[in-house]
């Protein structure tokens, strides 16, 4: 069974604050993704990676940085948080072998920027 964990589960910060969201997967998957979920917009891809040291730009990257330090760990960084970044953030992983394409999601991190 695929396992993706995220921390913290809830985070409150102030405008201009510095936030790091963490994601770890123990599936030996190559691909990892960061999404934000907002009512009316669905799941929107921020950044993704196909291995340690790799980073690909998603559809809504502005204001976000990301880093993939190992195959297991993928971090999302908000260096100057703004209220527009208040959202539910999901991390996901997939094997990316061209057969499954199934993405396994973590439990989510609810971020509030005051």
């Amino acid at each position, binding site marked *: 069974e695929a396992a*993706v964990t995220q921390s913290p589960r809830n985070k409150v910060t102030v405008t201009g604050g510095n936030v790091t969201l963490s994601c770890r997967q123990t599936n030996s998957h190559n691909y990892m993704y960061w999404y934000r979920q907002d009512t*009316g917009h*669905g*799941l929107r891809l921020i950044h993704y990676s196909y291995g340690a040291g790799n980073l690909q730009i998603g559809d809504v990257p502005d204001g976000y940085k990301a880093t993939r330090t190992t195959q297991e760990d993928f971090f999302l960084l908000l260096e100057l948080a703004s209220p527009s970044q208040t959202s539910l953030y999901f991390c996901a992983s997939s094997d*990316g072998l061209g057969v499954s394409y199934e993405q*396994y999601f973590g439990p989510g991190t609810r971020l509030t920027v005051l």
Partner: protein
Amino acid sequence: GDSVTQKEGLVTLTEGLPVMLNCTYQTIYSNAFLFWYVHYLNESPRLLLKSSTDNKRTEHQGFHATLHKSSSSFHLQKSSAQLSDSALYYCALSPNYGNEKITFGAGTKLTIKP
């Protein structure tokens, strides 16, 4: 670029009635994968079903969908709604040319009432 359209943001049905959630898509890639993901409250989104084969019915957990490339559609159906089907449903697309990126629609919130 690729896009997925789910016209209905909210669908409310009475238990026992049939379910149909609409999904249309745009992509230039003929071998695209289409997916339905389901997101229950306080859980992680998970794959419900997927297809890349034209005109073939795919079924899982009482739901079914048929990919129609001629009309670029992948509607989700169920013959009889249950209270437990209440959730957020996402249609999604992967162009299947190797970059492992999935584009999600805005989602349809399905509420089943007694």
